[in-house]
């Protein structure tokens, strides 16, 4: 929304010139530098209409070091990882990977949107895997709504019941046999902050 009196200008001193390089290192390739701002990504994206910045704009801002705007943007959290942008981009920019990298950086810095379901789901997922080696969809969804919007849980419960009665909901979580091995493996990986901050 437009706010009277809020300045809309960027001073060079407010930008983070190293931001793009950080992203490049995280994604392991520098394709983001090839972007020609053609907008193919934004137009092929099935959810760009819900984003605060279209993927193209996010790429432009990331490249120029608009650190705060990028990390606070909802765009990466709305990204459904459908890879349309990645395969359609004429310059082979790895946009989906960039979205992942931004999400990780936002979680590392703790600036991801609070109570927003996507990061909550991601973290819940992480905990389940660490505990059991596998995930359980029923519990995933329950936890998700408990932590974000308990009212939705009631709405979703109808579907939950139906799933249960058609035998599509495992109530008892599956657990792998060699969970010690899995935990050793996860511990051995020098993961990034997302893991560290919440384990």
């Amino acid at each position, binding site marked *: 929304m437009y706010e009277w009196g809020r300045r809309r200008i960027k001073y060079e001193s407010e930008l983070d010139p190293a931001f793009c390089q950080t992203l490049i290192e995280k994604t392991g390739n520098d394709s983001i530098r090839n972007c020609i701002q053609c907008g193919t990504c*934004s137009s*092929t994206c099935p959810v760009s209409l819900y984003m605060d910045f279209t993927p193209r704009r996010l790429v432009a801002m990331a490249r120029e070091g608009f650190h705060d705007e990028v990390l606070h943007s909802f765009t990466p959290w709305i990204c459904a990882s459908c890879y349309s942008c990645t395969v359609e981009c004429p310059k082979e920019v790895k946009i989906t990977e960039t979205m992942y990298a931004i999400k990780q950086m936002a979680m590392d810095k703790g600036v991801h949107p609070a109570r927003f379901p996507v990061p909550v789901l991601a973290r819940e997922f992480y905990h389940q895997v660490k505990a059991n080696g596998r995930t359980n969809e029923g519990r995933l969804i329950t936890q998700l709504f408990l932590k974000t919007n308990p009212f939705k849980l009631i709405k979703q419960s109808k579907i939950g019941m139906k799933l249960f009665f058609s035998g599509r909901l495992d109530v008892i979580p599956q657990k792998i046999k060699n969970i010690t091995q899995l935990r050793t493996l996860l511990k051995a990986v020098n993961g990034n902050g997302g893991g560290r901050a919440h384990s």
Partner: protein
Amino acid sequence: MSNNGNGRTNGSPRIGVYICHCGINIAAKVDVERVTRFAETLPGVVVSKEYKFMCSDPGQELIQKDIREHDLNRIVVASCSPLMHEETFRKATANAGLNPFYFQMANIREHVSWVTKDKDLGTEKAKALVAGAVRRVSLHQALEKKRVDVHPDVLIVGGGIAGIHAALTIANSGRKVLLVEREPTIGGHMAMFDKTFPTLDCAACILTPKMSQVKDHPNITLWSYSEVTKVDGFAGNFTIQVTRKPRYVNEDECVGCMLCIDSCVYKQARVDDEFNQGLSKRKPIYIPFPQATPPVVVIDPETCMQLSKGKCKQLCAEACEKHAIDFNQKEEVIEVQAGAIILATGFKTFNPMRIPEYGYGRYLNVYTSLEVERLVNASGPTGGEVVLRDGSKPKSIAIIHCVGSRDHKTNKYCSRVCCMYSLKLAHLMKERSNAEVYNFYIDMRTPGKGYEEFYDKLLEEGTHFIRGRVAEVTDWALTDAEEGKMIVRVEDTLVGMPRRIPVDMVILSVGLEAQPDADDVRRLFGVSCSKQGWFTERHPKLAPVSTATDGVFLAGACQGPKDIPDTVAQAGAAAAEALAMIDKGFVELEPNTAFIDEEVCSGCKSCIPMCPYTAIKRDDEKKVAVINEALCKGCGTCVATCPSGAAQQNLFLDEQIYEEIEGVLNYV
């Protein structure tokens, strides 16, 4: 062995070494001073100097002055690639009275300074190369270039606007031209257009007069429906084999009255018309378009009853008053001579089926730009009226730029003409159909005289310009207005929002690609081409119409995408280069031919079948191999083949090469 030339060869070598800075091209990565001081210490070196630009006049004079003052008899210049300036320095050497082949060049630019980051390493490598060159030059011998007369005719391959313009330029100077065109008519792509940007002059009005000049010019022989199938020889003396496909119509008799076409047993035209991009039909006997040159009909053997089934009433032949139709015509292979060759084979357009997202071939009303050129053409399939394939008239039209260009999955390069022709088509479509026209572009590229002004004009006309590359042309409707339409999904990047725009017609501004047979053609003529198939010029700035093969020149879009003004300018340049070569009357050949040391040759004949130019024969009396110097191209194959070391090559004698290697290795 080779003769002794006119230089001073006697006495021990007195070598002059010159190290070039090339501004900072070399000096930034090579310590020129150190290399110069180093060269002084090498045996035989009398003077060693450095200079900023050796190829400049003062640079060359430096060498000449030293030759005279210090009585030098060998010269080494360490600078750029021999391809660049070997000739320059050989001439400078010769001008001071020395045989030009007492010169050797060391490449410390392309081989050193341009490919290193470390100045110390660069300097060391430069020293090693200079040491090698100094040792090699001591063994150089005086050689003489051979002169060969030039055949005065020119062969031009491809009869688009490039080939036409080059042919007329040369013919008007009084020289003879053979123009070989693969299709039944000349004219190329330009013949398909209605108007041309940016002036919107009528393509036919400016092209067809030139086409008939070609036909009538006494100095031009036009062979259409023909292809070059073999090329032998060298600059000044090419022997060319041309294969003429049978058109089943006697070209000398046919007057283009087209009575035969009317009377063909096919009452309806049923075959896709290639010239109209399949937008209309033709009969088995046809003429591509009314102004076709030569104005001679052609029979397509695949669909003609007589030629495909062997049975027909042959009403065409009956109708022809000149008795021009000849079902027994056979393919003809003819050999011709020419001194110079101009390649003008043009381009083809990108096939948009390779981008299924754009719906070509799936949605009836998605067109390529070339199809639309025919559609708006007054002599096209609809007489210039904009009627779609489904019979309707469009109320809204999308023109999508950069289809098959600037895209890593298809072609990385920009096709250079499509922004401008998209503007032209936008104008024509609006004029003819009064539809809303949307141009979807990534960047608007209008560099050229009057081009930006043309863009201004389109803006004034109220054409929509949306900056965004279209992701998809589709037909899933989300609103009532979209029902039954094609929907263009795009981000309006200047607004920063995705948009869906329903349209009745989509025009794909397809890019320009090299001809699919470019690789075969380049082999035939011994020129090189880029990875994308564009023929490579000798130098992108300074020799844009020459090729690495002497006597073969380039004109038009076969060298890279370009518009008509640039094509014509280049065709003129190619014609001038060819004429310059022919009018000189002779060419000089590098004296790098092979020879046989008769003492050593055992007559084993190993070399004879290896020579790609059949230059070697056996002298049965002397029982040794003999090389015909006129045929030898200096490829060196025989030298490498000969088991006894009898085959040797001037400029590349074994001792010279070993000496150079030792010079380099001794230093390292």
